[in-house]
């Protein structure tokens, strides 16, 4: 029964309220209890580059392509973001604007809201389908572990980390993961298509 109700909410959100997350909307989905295997059970508060506080569960209702980066990272992180942008560019027309892209910062010290904003602008991800967010060390550790992303803070303040990109479905359940730059976006796209059909 619970599943059925959650499903109805999801359908409502997928087809009834198709505007981007960055816009105002009623958060009916976040009122329901997330599925037991959902990363939306993480209750930490994150802050976007616009200074807006949110919990992950507010992303529910549409697939989210997500990864973790830090903005002073010179080589790997821009490639992760480029890879995610490539996924967005290759979305079939019917999915354009209906998939959320989210990057979460490892760097509690240097990645201020202003830094995130600057980064979003420089990388042209300051659009409604994207968000870049920061939080405290505990929230970062919990999300990285829920996603299965390895990282280590180095002495110079930089981070060593995976290149993992995860796709969670409309309920926050991890449905697809890719951890290298050699993959074709086709597979990611078909994974997203599949979860949109459910």
């Amino acid at each position, binding site marked *: 029964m619970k599943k059925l109700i959650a499903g109805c909410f999801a359908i409502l959100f997928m087809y009834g309220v198709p505007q981007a997350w960055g816009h105002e909307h009623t958060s009916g989905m976040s009122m329901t209890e997330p599925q037991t295997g959902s990363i939306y059970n993480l209750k930490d508060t994150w802050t976007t580059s616009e200074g807006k506080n949110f919990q992950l569960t507010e992303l529910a209702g549409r697939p989210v392509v997500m990864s973790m980066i830090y903005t002073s990272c010179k080589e790997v992180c821009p490639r992760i973001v480029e890879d995610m942008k490539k996924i967005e560019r290759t979305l079939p027309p019917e999915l354009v604007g209906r998939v959320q892209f989210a990057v979460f910062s490892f760097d509690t010290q240097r990645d201020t809201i202003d830094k995130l904003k600057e980064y979003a602008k420089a990388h042209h991800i300051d659009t409604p389908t994207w968000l870049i967010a920061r939080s405290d060390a505990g929230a970062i550790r919990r999300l990285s*572990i*829920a996603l299965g992303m*390895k*990282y*280590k803070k*180095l002495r110079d303040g930089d981070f*060593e980390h995976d290149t993992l990109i995860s796709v969670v479905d409309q309920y926050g359940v991890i449905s697809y993961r890719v951890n290298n730059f050699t993959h074709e976006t086709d597979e990611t796209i078909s994974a997203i298509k599949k979860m949109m059909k459910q």
Partner: protein
Amino acid sequence: MIKQAVLSVIVSAASLVAMGSDDLVAIPGGSYVPFYPQKGTTTKTPVPPTLVESFLLDRDPVTNRRYLEFVFQHTEWRRSSIKRIFADSGYLQHWNNDLSILPEDLDKPVVNISWFAAEAFCEAKQERLPMTDEWEYVLEDLGRGKASRMQQVLQWYSIPNRELPQAGNSPPNGFGIRDMVGAIWEWTEDFNSFMASPDSRDSGQRNMFCGGGSLNASDPTDYASFMRYSFRSSLQGDFTGRNLGFRCAKDLK
């Protein structure tokens, strides 16, 4: 109210034999040579020591008794209500049900615990899990009794699924900490921080224990450390195991 009574009966049944303590012990800061160097160091230079600041650490691993008190108050961490994202189906499988456990197990280290559960327990006490560097520093014990410890570790690792001893069973090490070896494997806060290859962030390659990875070890004869780092790197946050438990730490302020 009824549940309260049941719990107190369960707890009092074995209170006379309570062994594991919930004392935090102050660990003076220092340095140790990590098994793997940080990024940027090569095999040509000696592995530089890692500094560890003073902190507090549980004298003993957390026991079933202490964990039972935790789930009594924090119902979302009971076996029947745990979210699947936070623990696999092995979570607390050695308990009879949500709030009952064999009296002889009460003072054994709690096992079948996921990282998320261990972390929630420590956080509820305004504590945290020890960092891997802190844990390894305490195990290394400033080099005291190194040869015998390595033997002890290997001997213990070689016996699979042995019956767990009571917590606090082993003699304290030089820091006054017990059971670092010989009882259970323990979660660390940053168990997911292990990157064997210094190039891993550039190449995305994982050569954990073959070829290049093993050449970077500070002591390639330290098989016990290979096993420990290998085990940690194989874990996911929801994993549980019948020999996997934890203890808490705290910043010294």
